[in-house]
């Protein structure tokens, strides 16, 4: 079952520490946003495999936007 990972804050994609096919644990940062002068990780809600990264570094995302999909 796949699950969309959504940004919980509006910001700019600062770093993408994972890529398609990576295994992640619950709480691991999937992407890192820059917002409010801080690096704010968007974490995997559960363990799984990254199926898709939907954003690129430097891209602005709104709160609630899907940034990645977890398998």
């Amino acid at each position: 079952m796949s699950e969309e990972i959504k940004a919980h804050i509006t910001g700019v994609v600062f770093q993408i520490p994972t890529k398609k096919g990576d295994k992640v644990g619950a709480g691991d940062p999937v992407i890192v946003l820059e917002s409010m002068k801080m690096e704010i990780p968007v974490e995997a809600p559960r363990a799984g495999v990254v199926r898709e990264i939907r954003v690129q570094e430097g891209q602005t995302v709104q709160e609630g936007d899907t940034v990645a999909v977890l398998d």
Partner: protein
Amino acid sequence: MGMKDHADELARRRAKARQMGGDDAVARQHAAGKLTARERIDRLFDKDTFTEIGIHATHAGIAPDLAGRDTPADGVITGFGKVDGRLASVIAYDFTVMAGSMGRNAETKCNRAREIAYTKRVPMIWLIDSAGARIQEAIGSRWFAGSGVLFREESVFSGVVPQVAAMMGPGAAGTAYIPALADFVPMVKGTSNMALGGPPLVKAVVGEDITAEELGGSKIHTEISGVADLEVDDDEHCLRVIKEYLSYFPSHNQEPPPVIACDDPVDRRDDELLTMMPDSPRRAYDVKKVIRALVDHGRMLELKPGWAKNIVTALARLDGHPVGVVANQPMVLGGALDLDSADKAARFIMLCDAFGIPLVFLQDVPGFMVGRKVERAGIIRHGAKMLYAVSEATVPKLTVVMRKAYGAGYFVMCGRAYEPDLIVAWPTAEISVMGPEGGTNIVYRKEIAAAANPDEERARRVEDFRKLISPYIAAGAALIDDVIDPRDTRPTLIRALEMARTKRVDRPWRKHGVMPV
């Protein structure tokens, strides 16, 4: 009939009332994972200190379908006793009797219990496990038109005596506004829920199908709505938490908070404070670790830990004296303040101020959230609540600027202008109206655009800007009382707390301010 016969009859009546709704109803209560109202009272109060009032109450005898039926104690146990040696009044709804519904005589008992708390100035504790109003006795306007006195009294005595409303079962409509007006609301996981209208009413009025748990279970109220303070595992845990909460509070607002003997050294310097904060000012860390390193034995009672997690509000002790800690949490939203976190902090500041509990502010705040979404939701209005609460508070206030102290975030976290009795900074503090990056882009926009290499020019300007926000600049202007080694934070706070103990602030007379709600 002689007096002995009268005494026997009395004993028989008491014994019957103590059986509550009967064996089957008690068995159902236990099967649901709940203690009975009387078992709860036994665990809440010190041994042999509870005095019950109103045990002989029964239903009002006005509902035809209740004719000939017995409602022991009319579905609510009331009285007074000692919690860890101090008096408190209790109202414990008994779900085994007509689902703990609020009958007329039951409410007369509750009025009496509140009278004890309010006129004797002792804490009021509700243990709620109730279907809400007893419709059979409340229907029609003759009685209802005069009802509702409990919420008015609860409001009037807010901040006079501590008021705790524990959700240990359902609470609908009437019994949902009791917690709404109380200071502290623990909720038992799995068995408790509260809503203004329960599922059948929701279905009938708005046509929505929803379970009581989805509508107002402990997860909803401790993580989404923020109505409750703490999710607890079971009844035993709930009663322990009530005692722990009350241990920080005086019996009423004209008594100082209770001090306990402390064997955690006042001059303890925790070396871990040198490594808790990452070197990069853009990286997060868990501020709860900092709090634990500062307070007595690392112990704290966090309120609303699952809601608005970008700010931490916790009761703790310093050298045995209760304090309320308000700390930004960089782990969540970078510690930026938003609507719910401003509400959470404002409420906590008012709670501590009402009962004379000094406040400790640990600042690491990049500011208030900005953008379309939060402006439409009224962040100005919510942020103002925190400004208002911190301005109103006249208890001792101590501020530690650990790292970021930006914009109005610095103000609401008790910056220099908000009457802190001591304000100190760690060497990593950044105090400014705006961060170096944002500030540079605004102030030097033209210079950067005109430069041969705009990126280099921007980087150079950012570095220059950064030098201006050093805590030594603010301390040099004598606006920060000292720059301290993080390891000295606990000893510094304890000395300042002792200094501020005789604090007295007289405000101009007014009926009350206009709180920006």
